[in-house]
């Protein structure tokens, strides 16, 4: 392993983030090439957390853009504060300013409402971390718009001209792969598929979050969750659900991973009635025996 990578792993570990060699290598590459990183994977595997931890590691500002269907440029780049502009016009009515002066005044920085993308490229101190979360939920039109931003790092505002990035932001895009992203967007990014964590990694994550947890309980819980992921469920549990479950069991005062506690708290890990019924009908006892074997 390269010394820089092991150093990064140690640093992230000190920030309570468990990262394996592969992801650490890609993060290092992203920082060296200054290229956006596209993380794809099932929900709940910690894709969003990567952006948070990079911001903490670099001690820089974190800007998040949550994507959704119908997301438009007004909500992502900028908007004019219309009400404030109107008030300003009223206030300057008797001031004797020319209409050109009035216009340049109301289309100034004071009236500009910066949205995440504009914030990211106008950050003056340091390159911020920009998280474009769940890009697969946004429309293709928005995806096409991002192409310009991710290659030129500039935005055109008709009233003000082109705004260029002071510092190239560190961009992390996440996708749950509900739809295929365009090749053009993928070409502009480094790509990493984030799978569900393996047993050891998941155990380490739970220990990081809950250092006082009983080791036997944590081990059995992780084995159980790993088993659930191997089944065909409507919604497989992610890492966050495992942590919540462990926290829940501790809150319930569980000393051991028994059928009673599992049955009571199954709703923490499974988010579908069908899945819960399936697991109960399969028999929690038999599952426990199977994972122990």
């Amino acid at each position, binding site marked *: *392993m*390269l010394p*820089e*990578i092991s150093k990064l792993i140690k640093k992230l570990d000190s920030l309570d983030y468990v990262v394996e*060699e*592969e992801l650490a*290598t*890609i993060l290092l*590459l992203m920082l*060296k*090439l200054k*290229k956006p*990183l596209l993380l*794809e994977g099932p929900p709940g595997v910690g894709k969003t957390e990567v952006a948070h931890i990079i911001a903490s590691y670099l001690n820089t500002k974190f800007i998040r853009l949550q994507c959704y*269907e*119908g997301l*438009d440029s007004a909500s992502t780049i900028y908007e004019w504060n*219309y*009400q404030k502009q*109107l008030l300003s016009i*009223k206030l300057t009515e008797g001031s004797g300013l020319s209409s050109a002066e009035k216009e340049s005044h109301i289309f100034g920085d004071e009236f500009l409402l910066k949205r995440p993308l504009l914030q990211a490229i106008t950050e003056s101190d340091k390159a911020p971390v920009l998280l474009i979360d769940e890009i697969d939920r946004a*429309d293709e039109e928005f995806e096409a718009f991002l192409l310009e931003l991710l290659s030129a790092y500039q935005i055109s505002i008709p009233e003000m001209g082109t705004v260029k990035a002071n510092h190239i932001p560190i961009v992390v895009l996440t996708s749950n792969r509900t*739809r*295929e992203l365009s*090749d053009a967007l*993928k*070409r502009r990014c*480094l*790509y*990493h*598929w984030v799978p569900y964590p393996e047993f050891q990694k998941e155990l380490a994550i739970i220990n990081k979050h809950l250092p006082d947890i009983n080791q036997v309980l944590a081990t059995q819980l992780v084995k159980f969750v790993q088993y659930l992921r191997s089944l065909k469920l409507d919604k497989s549990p992610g890492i966050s659900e495992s942590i919540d479950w462990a926290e829940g069991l501790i809150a319930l005062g569980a000393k051991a991973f028994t059928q009673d506690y599992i049955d009571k708290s199954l709703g923490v890990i499974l988010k579908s009635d069908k899945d819960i019924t399936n697991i109960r009908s399969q028999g929690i006892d038999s599952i426990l025996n199977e994972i122990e074997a």
Partner: protein
Amino acid sequence: MQHYSNYSGLEASVLGFCELCRSHELSIGLNHSEEALMAAQSGFINDSKSFKIALRSIFCSCEEEYSTFDRFFDIYWRKKRHEYMPKTRTRKQTKIIKQTKGSVVLVGSGDEEETKKDGARTVSGANKMESLRKTDFSKVADIDHLLLDELAEKLLLQLNHRLKRRLRASKDGKIDLRKTIRRNLSQGDNLFELLKKNRKFEKYRMIILLDVSGSMDKYSFYLLKFIWTLKSNFKKIEAFVFSTKLLRITEFIEKVQIDQAMLQMNTNSDHWSSGTVIGKCLQEFNDQYSKKVLLKLNCLETTAWIQANLNCYQKS
């Protein structure tokens, strides 16, 4: 056939690897080559595993490409490794290097032959999924049918999703002056809040005639799935299948599950994959259903090869 062993120097080796990947399904542009070179020069080349991970993140654009990439990386760089990477060789490693010397060329030529054999996949610059998206159903190899089913399901879901989205009123319509004035009456003459007009969409009725004769075998299954997907996006869909007979399948496609719909069609139809008597079928359609369903016709789709039955079609 490329002789990658002819390259020398780090730059040439990286470019040679790009060339190899490019000729085997991975879509790699000039910027990727440049970035691969930058990664190598910034120290990743010093560790084979790190270099592999770095190049994989640059070259691959989906998880499915990982295995292809890994295969070519191992073949290509196993040979080049000793030139750039620290020498931590054992006797066993030396043996592996010897084995790969010839296999770089062999694999290159082997895959080219395979590609030539597989006509359905020879879409330039596209990966397997992409090429399958552009391939005619009739040219799809049997082995790809499962993959195609999966792909069709995904595409149909996307189609359904998009159609639904289009029917939703946009917030970005024109300013509705009447509503805006009314809303801002309390503000005097200041129009603080701007209200927009909502676009209204009208759902259309659709009539579909689908040819399910023998020649359409490879298409009809997917087109039926397509019709089933469309049902929720139109006011009313009237669907018919025909070959030597005409069958109205409107009630079957109303089923919630596509499997149920298919099963119903299967049990009610005995003329699937037979010949085509398009004229007779259209005549039957005219006689029995046209008055009921053609009150307001917006769209008529037929997938049949009308040319062959043109005379009969004109008569009907």
